[in-house]
């Protein structure tokens, strides 16, 4: 790789910045990068559950070597809500470890905002802006919906990018890797985030692969908002390990199909029908053990909608209902009255986490949960590995199946 004078000075300086750049050089060399690109911000995933003592020691080494983020660096959702330890059988040891990690991140200048919806609550990069984000759903959203440019920056990689202020120029930082090579026509009206998640899941299963970019064409009746696209992004990354898609007529690099493909020939054209979408969803009326709204964390608009759907209803006996969001949305939900009403109706509201990070298998054993319903296709994909029987429903159907009328 060709280094700028500034990058050479970083190597010559030694310490954490040199160590960070050296790791990035190896990754860049692997992928054939010839240079770095400067980034405006980084988004890091790391907590005691995911990296154990090895990750904590790694952070400590960076701190001891004088590491300091030179661009704004935020952290993703974590495994524990320190202010709701009694709600979901959380581990006191993980909580103690998390406090240590927060101190180390503060020393590095990273912001422990603990959110996977930073693009809805913290910062939205502009089209063409290079960033280094370390959560798959946020990466798919950044590349696809915002037109920003990032690869999956996993483990320590995004933190290292925050320390050096740059990342190797390969993959989705380059124009040629952003072209759609597959077209999926969706012949169904999509009216709920769950439908958009189903599309992400089915496209992801069909075109699995990090380098694969699909263009998706929807009917004129389907008019997605940010939360719909959030679920599409999370699901296509979860089911397909895909980092980018185009939504023709909606996303910034796809005003037309020709723009999305950059003039390249399509390798495959396929269709998703209404039957495909409905087959992915569940329609029975049996109350689940637990209903979870998470993955990704909920926006303020999503919480307001759930509050509205819950009017005059409460969670059924024998069923639990959980909502996760970040502190910023949580504060506003409390101020606007949503949180108190939802709690009064039996809903647990958890902050800082995405529920699947909170030892779902342990909760299943602790509370005897078997079945789980959700409007998140991503969550359904993950919890099978933790022993649950998941079902995906629209937001309204999730609430209808797990609540009962209540005259307060």
């Amino acid at each position, binding site marked *: 790789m060709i280094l700028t004078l500034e990058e050479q000075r970083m190597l010559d300086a030694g310490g954490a910045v040199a160590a960070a750049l050296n790791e990035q050089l*190896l*990754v860049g060399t692997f992928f054939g990068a010839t240079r770095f690109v400067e980034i405006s911000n980084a988004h890091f995933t790391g907590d005691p559950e995911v990296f154990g003592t090895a990750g904590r020691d*790694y952070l400590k080494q960076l701190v001891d070597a004088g590491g300091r983020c030179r661009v704004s660096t935020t952290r993703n959702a974590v495994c524990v809500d320190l202010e709701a330890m009694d709600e979901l059988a959380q581990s006191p040891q993980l909580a103690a470890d998390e406090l240590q990690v927060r101190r180390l991140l503060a020393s590095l200048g990273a912001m422990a905002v603990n959110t996977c919806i930073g693009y809805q609550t913290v910062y939205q990069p502009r089209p063409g802006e290079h960033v280094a984000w370390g959560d798959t759903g946020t990466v798919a959203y950044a590349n696809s919906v915002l037109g920003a440019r990032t690869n999956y*920056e996993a*483990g320590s990689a995004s933190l290292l990018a925050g320390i050096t202020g740059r990342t190797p120029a390969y993959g989705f930082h380059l124009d040629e890797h952003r072209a759609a090579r597959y077209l999926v026509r969706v012949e169904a009206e999509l009216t709920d985030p769950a439908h958009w998640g189903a599309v992400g899941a089915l496209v992801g299963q069909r075109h*699995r692969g990090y380098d694969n970019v699909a263009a998706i064409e929807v009917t004129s009746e389907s008019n997605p908002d940010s939360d719909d696209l959030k679920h599409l992004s999370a699901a296509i990354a979860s089911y397909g*390990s895909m980092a980018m898609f185009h939504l023709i007529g909606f996303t910034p690099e796809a005003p037309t199909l020709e723009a999305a493909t950059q003039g390249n020939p399509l390798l495959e054209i396929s269709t998703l029908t209404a039957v495909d979408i409905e087959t992915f969803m569940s329609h029975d009326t049996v109350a689940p053990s637990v209903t979870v709204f998470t993955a990704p964390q909920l926006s303020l608009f999503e919480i307001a909608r759930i509050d509205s759907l819950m009017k005059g209803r409460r969670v059924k006996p024998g069923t639990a209902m959980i909502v996760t969001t970040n502190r910023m949305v949580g504060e506003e939900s409390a101020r606007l009255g949503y949180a108190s009403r939802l709690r009064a109706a039996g809903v647990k509201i958890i902050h800082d986490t995405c529920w699947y990070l909170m030892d779902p298998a342990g909760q299943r054993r602790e509370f005897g949960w078997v079945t789980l319903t959700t409007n998140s296709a991503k969550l359904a994909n993950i919890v099978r590995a933790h022993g649950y029987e998941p079902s995906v429903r629209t937001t309204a159907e999730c609430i209808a199946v797990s609540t009962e009328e209540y005259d307060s």
Partner: protein
Amino acid sequence: MTTTKPAATATPTASEFALERAIGPTIRARALISAVPFSARYDLDRVNGIVSRVGHPLQGSRIADRLFIAPGVQGGVAGGWALLAMAKAGVGFAGLILGDTNPVMVQGAVTAGIPIAAGFAPELIESVRTGDLIELDPQNRVLRILERARAE
């Protein structure tokens, strides 16, 4: 990093396979072959370094000091940290050789200090067998079979 002495009764071979991309130190180790894509988060008991996913073709296999070969990868960013955690605990892979990969595994392998390679012809995964002594040479982008595992 990991060198396993050839068994006296081994049959030497000189089979070599080209790799599209590779980085890290040259190592020799016994192969562990997976027929299915690899997820560091969901396939493994990361504390003990054992394939733990129920129904996985390698369920119960130890990964320590093995050169792991799989057709691809799946799963999210957590996989990057998993490689470091297992390396520090002394239960991790000697290296990874993958058909398709994504940045997660590459970044994780670099942080863990183990070699990684990606992109190979189908003959590689058809030829190499679990237990074969193999050499991963990232600088020359080559995998070599040094000796065949003895038949059970």
